[in-house]
């Protein structure tokens, strides 16, 4: 059986409130909060990028596991803000982790679902016997143009999952994907900020793909929403995951633990992976988690996870080290808009 051996998360300490951004652009903060379902977002430090964030998350995953860096045979980093267009983030992270040289490295890009695509790819390699364990990382410092609607949600964070076949904290019971050529959000090489197709990002994009993957997954597993203890969905804003959970028949309670978006916004490739980590931080053994990511362009990956007794060991280490997603959310420093522009290298 393939599954999660350990996991690590990293959320930059800085936050900017939606009210602060709205105030700069003379928008009504309450209206923005209501329409996007957001209150604040995380901001990278001035010396942080997708590579440093990926490293932080991966380091913590290794730290809380029984794995040595040299055990990692595959390292994929999913991001849409790789620091280099050509020059892999994965090898930078691998070098600093001390993995050595006997590993396969690659960067993955699929908007906000590159990280879950990495999980699926490594799970396939482990299941096929090509590797014993690998690191799947989702990390982003999401770009957004000042005064654009993305500015209210685009956040920074990373999540790393060691995928293997021994000492599993959660078994991957089933997975599937749903993909189509649906260009709802894009950024060409050399262009600083992404473009998006406004309301087209909703029904034909997010909802069609998340619901498509979710329903296929439930059918394949012959399960229904009531069979799960928790659910996790990609969180481009505070509204979409709540709507999609309701449409599928999941309850607010099943969804609640995963909603990191309420506190840090949308860290793109890390979003659903961070939601999964937030659930794993508090889940008990033998609980089932239903997860669906979403990447613009577009596609969704759906996974069914089942926790094991091993989870408590990782939870204890994470709690002691103050690595719980909740603990990282609570450790924060608020900044103003000018500081935000500086830290995101916009001035």
């Amino acid at each position, binding site marked *: 059986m393939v599954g999660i051996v350990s996991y690590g998360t990293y959320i930059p300490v800085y936050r900017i409130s939606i009210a602060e951004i709205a105030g700069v652009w003379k*928008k*009504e903060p309450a*209206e923005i909060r209501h329409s996007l379902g957001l209150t604040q977002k995380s901001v990278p430090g001035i010396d942080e990028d997708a590579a440093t964030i990926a490293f932080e998350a991966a380091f913590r995953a290794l730290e809380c596991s029984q794995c040595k860096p040299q055990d990692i045979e595959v390292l994929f980093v999913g991001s849409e803000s790789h620091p280099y267009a050509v020059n892999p983030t994965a090898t930078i992270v691998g070098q600093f982790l001390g993995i050595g040289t006997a590993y396969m490295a690659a960067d993955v890009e699929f908007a906000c679902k590159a990280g879950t695509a990495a999980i699926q790819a490594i799970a396939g390699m482990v299941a096929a016997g090509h590797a014993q364990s690998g690191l799947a990382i989702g990390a982003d410092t999401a770009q957004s143009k000042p005064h654009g609607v993305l500015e209210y949600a685009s956040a920074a964070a990373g999540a790393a999952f060691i995928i293997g076949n021994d000492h599993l904290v959660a078994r991957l019971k089933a997975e599937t994907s749903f993909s189509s050529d649906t260009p709802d959000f894009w950024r060409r090489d050399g262009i600083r900020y992404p*473009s998006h*197709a*406004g*309301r*087209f990002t909703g029904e*034909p994009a997010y909802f069609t793909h998340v619901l498509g993957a979710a329903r296929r997954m439930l059918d394949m597993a012959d399960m229904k929403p009531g069979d799960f203890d928790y659910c996790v969905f990609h969180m481009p804003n505070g509204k979409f995951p709540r709507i999609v959970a309701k449409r599928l028949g999941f309850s607010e309670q099943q969804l609640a633990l995963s909603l990191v978006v309420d506190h840090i916004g949308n860290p793109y490739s890390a979003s659903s992976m961070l939601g999964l980590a937030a659930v794993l931080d508090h889940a008990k053994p033998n609980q089932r988690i239903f997860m669906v990511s979403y990447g613009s362009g577009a596609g969704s990956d759906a996974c069914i996870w089942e926790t094991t007794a091993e989870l408590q060991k990782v939870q204890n280490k994470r709690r002691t080290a103050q690595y719980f997603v909740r603990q990282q959310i609570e450790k924060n420093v608020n900044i103003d808009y000018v500081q935000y522009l500086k830290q995101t290298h916009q001035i």
Partner: protein
Amino acid sequence: MKHQPTNMNVYVTGVATTKFGELWDVSPRQLARQAVQAAMKDAGVHPEHIKGLFVGNMLSGMLGGQEHLGAFFSEELELFVPASKIEGACASGGLAVHAAFNSIRSGQYDTVVVLGIEKMTDHRPEDVATALMGAGSEEERAAGATFPGLYAMLARAHMRAFGTTEEDMAAVAVKNHFHAGKNQNAQFQKEITIEQVMHSSRIADPLKLLDCSPISDGAAAVVLTSQKSKIKNQKFVEVAASAVATDTLGLAQRKSLTELSATKRAGEQAYTMAGVRPKDIHVAEVHDCFTIAEILALEDLQFAKKGKAAEAIRNGEVTLGRAKHIVINPSGGLKGCGHPVGATGVKQIAEITEQLRGTAGNRQVARARIGLAHNVGGSGATAVVHILKM
């Protein structure tokens, strides 16, 4: 050469409107086919009856890169008749009906199709806003103005002159959403409140989001004919008047900002041509691209005295089910039904025709015998008024 009789009577014999809204999975070709085939079926005519195709459209070139629209749709509809695009900004649809009307009245053609069509939501809002400003003056474009800003100036002038309030303008949106709720083709089929309008985002003060008509996709088609005796259809509505007036492109050159002179002049011509008075009209579709525009239209078309339209709207005097003399925008107007700019003027004719036939369903205006359609281009540089009689 056979000489045709002139000053033929013109009748609307077939109408159809597609769904208006964000139609991301429908192409312009599909929209056109859907609207025209339904209108021809409604009219009981076949392709061989059709002698001309008039296409009302504004943005196919700037947004879609497709000009030569007459032949484009002639091919799609397999009509292969004389076909042309008629452009007059947001009055393109009304102007296309006017051109078709003249073609029949002159005796050139006996039966024609008018297609109004626009595909807007596949494009970025900023691109659509830039393209729409093609309807403004060079000075307005150079100053960075957009239509919400221009109509906001008209609103401010009206507020200053007549004490019109933001709540008065909100009442237009509330009424038109109420009507749109009864129209299955409308983009917004839900009611809203004054409070929701007042608390919506400010777009160009004093206009807020819910004071503005949306960007939409949609098409409408009407079949016009002079052949009342040859077509086996009982559903003939006469086009009693078709009038157009133009004005300066830019607001700065206007004598007054509290009226649209083109609307007044086109309205007066239409009333004279049809031999009716404003108080004879039972139902009207007017150009409410912004809520202030409906207030201006009611005054300029003499449905209300100057400065009194807002009060009439607020008191429900032009609302379906409450009106005593006239219902304004039973389709939901541009605000509630949506505003695919080239389609709007044709949709207005389709709506008034349905109302006069008595086939408008649960938005039917009781005992409607005479109706008016009012379509505006830009900030009032073009106005088209049609009067229809049963």
